[in-house]
């Protein structure tokens, strides 16, 4: 779980480090859907994961216990990327100090958080397929189309009921008033254009 403090000294000007990290087991809280579990394969969980140093300079794989190691990394600033289908890992900036032997500082570049212990865990699971919504009658009713139909049904069956409640004499009076205002134009009579 910690950086291996072993480093090899060939001659004084060339200090190479072994970077060793633990890739954390995928937390069960971020539970991927079933087809991801099969895509990654629970048994061969680690066998398809690649760890890349400096954009392809070195590629390494995970050991069964989740550890990975980059050997002979010179002092400087490096970038580690983890590629696992179904998960997104933040790239890790690793500063290997030239002066203080074995002093290594690691930072997650995506969320700008420095790592105290050298354990990488996925930022988030990745779902490559959009889940199809299951069919439900409520979804149809709730869609704009369904709402319109529902409103129409309400209007068709409730409006006559409302009409019945209106006093016939009052109705006649209003109609008289309307007629007195003038002849309605043709266009207002017609359900034009549509």
């Amino acid at each position, binding site marked *: 779980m910690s950086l291996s403090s072993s480093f*090899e000294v060939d001659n004084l000007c060339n200090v190479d480090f072994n970077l060793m990290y633990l890739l954390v087991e995928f937390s069960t809280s971020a539970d991927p859907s079933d*087809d*991801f579990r099969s*895509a990654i394969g629970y*048994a*061969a969980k*680690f*066998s398809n994961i*690649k760890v*890349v140093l*400096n*954009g*392809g*300079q*070195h*590629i*390494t*794989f995970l*050991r*069964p216990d989740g550890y990975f*190691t980059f*050997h*002979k990394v*010179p002092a*400087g*600033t*490096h*970038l580690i*990327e983890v*590629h696992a*289908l*179904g998960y*997104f890992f*933040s*790239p890790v900036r690793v500063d290997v100090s030239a002066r203080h032997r074995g002093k290594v500082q690691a*930072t997650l*570049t*995506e969320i700008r958080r420095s790592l105290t212990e050298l354990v990488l865990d996925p930022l988030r699971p990745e*779902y*490559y*397929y*959009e889940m*199809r919504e*299951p*069919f439900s009658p409520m979804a149809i009713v709730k*869609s*704009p*189309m369904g709402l*319109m*139909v529902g409103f*129409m049904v309400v209007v*068709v069956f409730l409006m006559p009921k409302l009409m019945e409640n209106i006093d016939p004499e009052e109705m006649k009076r209003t109609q008289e008033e309307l007629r007195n205002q003038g002849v309605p134009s*043709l*266009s207002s*009579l*017609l*359900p*034009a*254009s*549509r």
Partner: protein
Amino acid sequence: MLSAMWLLPYMILGGIAEALISVAQNEFFYSDQLPNSLSSVATTLSGLGMAAASLVSSWIVTATCRSWITEDIDEGHLDYYYWLMAALSLLNVVYFVWCSNSYDQNSPPSPDLLVSTCRGKHQRYIGKVKHAVFHTQKTGRKRVIVSTEQNVVASLDLRHGEIFWRHVLGTKDAIDGVDIALGKYVITLSSEGSTLRAWNLPDGQMVWETSLHSAQQSKSLLSVPINLKVDKDYPILVFGGGYLHAVSAVDGELIWKKDFTAEGFEVQRVLQTPGSSIVYVLGFIKSSEAVVYQIDSKSGEVVAEKSVVFPGGFSGEISSVSSDKVVVLDSTRSILVTIGFLDGDISFQQTRISDLVEDSGKAEILSPLLTNILAVKVNKRTVFVRVGGEGKLEVVDSLSDETAMSDSLPVADEQEAFASVHHEGSKIHLMVKLVDDLETVLLRESIQMDQHRGRVHKVFINNYIKTDRSNGFRALIVMEDHSLLLLQQGAIVWSREEGLASVTDVTIAELPVEKDGVSVAKVEHTLLDWLQGHVLKLKGTLLLASPEDVAAIQEMRMKSSGRSKLTRDHNGFRKLIIALTRAGKLFALHTGDGRIVWSMLLNSPNKFCERPSGISLYQWQVPHHHAMDENPSVLVVGRCGSDSSAPGVLSFVDVYTGKEISSSDIGHSVVQVMPLPYTDSTEQRLHLIADTNGHVHLYPKTSEALTIFQREFQNVYWYTVEADDGIIRGHAMKSSCSGETADEYCFTTRELWTVVFPSESEKIISTLTRKPNEVVHTQAKVNTDQDLLYKYVSRNLLFVATVSPKGAGEIGSVTPEESALVVYLIDTITGRILHRLSHQGCQGPVHAVFSENWVVYHYFNLRAHKYEVTVVEIYDQSRAENKNVWKLVLGKHNLTAPISSYSRTEVLTKSQSYFFAQSVKSIAVTSTAKGITSKQLLIGTIGDQILALDKRFVDPRRTLNPSQAEKEEGIIPLTDSLPIIPQAYVTHSLKVEGLRGIITAPAKLESTTHVFAYGVDLFYTRLAPSKTYDSLTDDFSYALLLITIVALVAAIYITWVLSEKKELSEKWR
């Protein structure tokens, strides 16, 4: 009396229709169904339609049916009016049905991996096999472990050739050796002998990894003792980088190491005699002194050491013939030296090759490990030499043909056998002989090859015990075209087209047009079938389908779409992907199901050149689609040898049949091939080929082509990039070549301009131009405030990226202060630098894509220690006064005015940078038929996935708080990094292992583009960057539509009946 209730069904229908159409229309226009540039136009167009309809309707009312509509409904004939409306609507319905029928119902397919022979087998590739180790001892699954030139280690099923597991190592992690240890681990040695890994044999999980110390370059050697298979005490011996290491096979622990760097000692052979812990290490010092160390394999102590100087010197190859003898060639390659090192004592014995065979030239020792037999290649003959007890050599056999041999393999009765394979015409002959007795042929088989695969390159044999207790043999052979075949009992059990793992160039070609009389797949069913099918689909959409139903739906879809037909389709979805591989083989893959339609191994017309290597691929002849009887053809440019000055070979291949029309040995080298924008009367495209002498050659060599070319002589320009010297040169044509060898198709050139980058501060790492055949729909871009920006669309723009020489190395090797990345946009006609942009504290590698008037490039920002993507868009300022949109619409603009590179146009560039969370291997951009559809960037990530990113995300006009107008235009608020949306991976949960390139090509349907990605795997899919706005999806449920209509009719009928009843009761009241 006419009841007002009569209006009810009409109103209901109208209401439903309105609800349906307005929602659907809004979805269609605004939710990304149309390209962004079209959505607002389409909305207003539909409003225009409404306005026109209103006008027409009032005209109808006033002009034709005044008398029908009166104040009192009972007096007029309102029903006539509605009948008229109904008739018009019926016409409209007919028109609509006709329109929707013209739509094709093919859908974009679910992405599928291109597989070598048939769909569903899910085959991936591994590359050309270098080493193979069989694992057949146990009764379980029989497998073969292979390592390849593409740095793949894989376990293959020996019965079917399927991949159990595989790992693609890094590009610099070439595999030097592979073996099986302890019966359960696959051991690989890679990176010039500095990395040793063990993989679990059944599932490919890495068990341990050991980094070995290496101090110098040397050849590397992996030696897994035979004893190790039973006894764990013996270590794995590895030589590499000047050190000999002993590594425990159980956990990869380094047991001991021996430093040989001081003397310059090169280990040639490590011999571990069974039953003894003494290891003999034989090596040479400076190719002239043979040294034998006896090392205790448990402790690493040198027990004994002996060295003898050989005055003649050794050449590299060595053949170990027995546990205490090796044979080498001396430095003149004419003397065979047998070195015996029995008990740590060295003895030399020299034999002249001329004593063994007559007319001997320079000899070459072939690699196979044969006991007591040596294979030597002299004068294209393979000679078998037996090494006698005292180092005496005698010729026992010779083969005149080029033959590939396997290592020897112990068979029953302490004898060893080996296989030799040679090919003759379309047959290959496999022979298995006993090493001690070459007359005894254990197996002789002739196998008919189904296609031309060239010579046999490598043979690996394995034996098994037949039911009658005799020995059976299976042979794994690697052919010249990199294919891998398993031969057993006189037949090819399986084959893998591994050449496709090293695709170098790809072009996309049309399929033949469907001719009359050619039977079309039966489309018409009975109405019942049709209905049943749609009921099934309905079940599918309502998720009620059983698994059988789902299978039936799938099958139906496959059948109805006719995806694998070998004819052109209406939408341009079925095409041929022509892929040229490094082995010089051309494959045509069908986009529908990924099968290989034809394949062809390039032949050389030149007798001196065995097999040309393929370089690049060009569309040679693309007949206009009216010329049905002409077949299109492609031009394959090859080269005889690996040197760039080697003579080139041209081959013209018919795309439909895969037959070579002609091939020619052009007699000059090929540096650059330039397709010209001119074609001759037979639609052959003119090509210019530049050679190393600075001459260019015109093809095809016809007088017609010459006439066309001479007309355009002054207008042909090109450029060359000398990346090592940091110089870019522009050239123009000068005159015809002089000299006796030159013909009239050869021209000399003159240099127009040079751009020299200062070598102390800038080093060219990437250059890029636009794709020559890209279509640009509109040259103008309308801003939100109604003014225009004119895109600077020029075919002659070159994107160049340079970094400081210090920053040219790997990430981590340089500090931000030391490195700067500078990008240029250079006009290739005049050499004018249109734009220069410097990124301080950044470095490569740069991956870029250039399309229309923009460049998007990906690089590393050292200060933030993150990858960055920058977009640069270039606009033409000289036409900026044409700011009026109306001028553009009415055609009063000067877009058609010729643009000349010499008219020093003022350009305006806009750029913006974003962070990107991943390394990138390749970037491409989608291309569609007319260029209307909005574009997507296809980013091949380091994880071998392909991410589709909308161009809208890399738009320099993005701001932190876009105004309302900008939001409506689709401008996304600025964020500091580009989003990686997992659903936007076009590869979904698949990986294109070892991704190297992405190719896009337009389909005939404007919305759709073909995407082909190649690496170790191949991947093909069709993309619709703005969704398929121009076709219905395959999932469209006609049954649902039908049911809705039936329900509506029923509703109308019921309301009618109800209203009748009510009317009656009214009357009775």
